């Protein structure tokens, strides 16, 4: 297989244009927690019950015509390496890998839908799209939920809603999140101020890489805290409207940087980052993420003539350890990784699909 074909296979299927507000919003995700009646929740269930979950979901997929292009993968039939690739593509959580026996994942062809089996809940249905498309992510997860509920006996209570393993997810069982890129707010020292408001309206914020509000790559995830007492549309609507305001703030900060003497500094910074990425021979993952963040903003503002924003976003995935090693075709030592990472970045950044 050519490297191009390999890259295409290893990039998350959902990461493709069009991506509305994609200059700032990386991805939109909705996850629905569902459980089956009469079976213990996964952490409390024995092997037979866990297998029962996989069997029931497998049978439901077969009996509904819609799922022709969906595949159920058992985690215990995959290598740890391939499992990590799924984590790096945002298709399964790291928690699902803790104990791969009797766990599974259902994926559709373009990887916009994934269903984790026997993670904290029996089913975790995920819809994911690039850019700000949270409604689309919700609609796609909801559609899968509707098709599956016709075949499966989901645990539901009129008063409590969908019953989940952890009481923090009960009710809608819905966790909606967006991943936003806020480098300009960070540069003007306002990112903490903007994000600090979100918890007071029931939203969580965390850095995408590492904890806290100091995120490498200036990527932050915004999600809902509460799952009970609000309808799904209210939760999704709230995150969309708040995200739009965060986008406005980031755009304003970018404009302010461009309109002042800082423009030259900004141009210098993003082009230096581009220069480093296109000429390094050894580069750590941390440094790559930091520089990619600068280049992503530079591309969005047309400050780097040769950079293509979509290609830059793809690199955020291609440099991750499991995907990178899959591309090279063997295990790499940390030192080798820095070498191949640099080569991968040089080669891929040279591409321009515009």
């Amino acid at each position, binding site marked *: 297989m050519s490297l191009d074909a390999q890259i295409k296979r290893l990039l998350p299927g959902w990461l493709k244009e069009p991506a509305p507000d994609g200059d700032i919003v990386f991805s939109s995700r909705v996850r629905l927690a569902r459980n089956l009646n009469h079976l213990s929740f996964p952490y409390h269930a024995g092997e037979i019950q866990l297998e029962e979950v996989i069997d029931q979901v497998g049978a439901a997929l077969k009996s509904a015509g819609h799922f022709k292009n969906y595949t159920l993968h058992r985690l215990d039939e995959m290598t740890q390496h391939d499992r990590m690739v799924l984590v790096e593509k945002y298709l399964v959580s790291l928690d699902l890998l803790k104990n791969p026996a009797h766990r599974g994942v259902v994926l559709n062809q373009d990887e916009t839908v994934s269903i984790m089996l026997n993670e904290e809940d029996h089913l975790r249905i995920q819809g994911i799209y690039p850019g700000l498309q949270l409604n689309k992510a919700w609609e796609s997860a909801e559609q899968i939920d509707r098709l599956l509920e016709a075949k499966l006996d989901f645990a539901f209570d009129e008063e409590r*809603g969908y019953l989940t393993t952890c009481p923090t997810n009960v009710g809608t069982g819905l966790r909606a999140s967006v991943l936003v890129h806020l480098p300009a707010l960070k540069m003007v020292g306002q990112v903490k101020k903007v994000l600090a408001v979100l918890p007071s309206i029931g939203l969580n914020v965390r850095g995408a890489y590492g904890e806290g509000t100091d995120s490498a790559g200036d990527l932050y995830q915004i999600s809902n805290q509460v*799952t009970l007492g609000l309808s799904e549309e209210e939760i999704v609507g709230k995150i969309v409207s708040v995200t739009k305001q965060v986008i406005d703030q980031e755009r304003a900060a970018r404009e302010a940087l461009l309109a002042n003497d800082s423009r030259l500094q900004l141009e210098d910074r993003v082009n230096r980052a581009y220069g480093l990425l296109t000429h390094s021979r050894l580069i750590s993952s941390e440094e790559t993420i930091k520089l990619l963040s600068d280049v992503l903003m530079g591309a969005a503002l047309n400050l780097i003539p040769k950079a293509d924003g979509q290609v830059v976003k793809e690199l955020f995935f291609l440099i991750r350890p499991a995907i990178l090693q899959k591309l090279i075709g063997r295990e790499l030592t940390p030192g080798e990784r820095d070498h191949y990472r640099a080569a991968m970045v040089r080669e891929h950044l040279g591409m321009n699909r515009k």
Partner: protein
Amino acid sequence: MWCERCKKRQATVHVTKIVNNHKTESHLCEICAGETGQELGFLFEPNFSFQHLLAGLLENEFGVKSEAFTERSAQELEKCPTCGLTFTDFRKIGLMGCADCYQAFAEYLNPLLRRIHGSISHTGKAPHNIGGRIRARKELETLRRRLKDAIKREAYEEAAQLRDQIKAKEAELN
């Protein structure tokens, strides 16, 4: 620099820890760092998950914490009839054992849910077949209310119509 633990591989993980103003440095290879748990997030492990807060959230509800709970020790032995999870287990791990636990531990749940979500009732979507029943039952309640009202007003013709509608709805629900 060699890994100070295995002394065989390059040290690639360099950690500086400051505990009580005392600085310690360690230099490990990736494998030893993984084995000793010195990965990212090693500097500070907050003991602050939902599970850790749960005991507090439950206890506060009953006023003075430990006393109230010793009186309730009988209830603490309560088990979910379906999956066998005890209330003590739930307090410890913060997770339900199965869907029926929500019934078995119902009396403790309202205060807990109110604290977590600020609400105790679901207002979102329902599985289609159940959703239809909820709607039908609510419509039935409304019809019965209207029937009572009609009888009170001595509007017998309207009452007769409502009674027919109620019968039809009841048949539909069964």
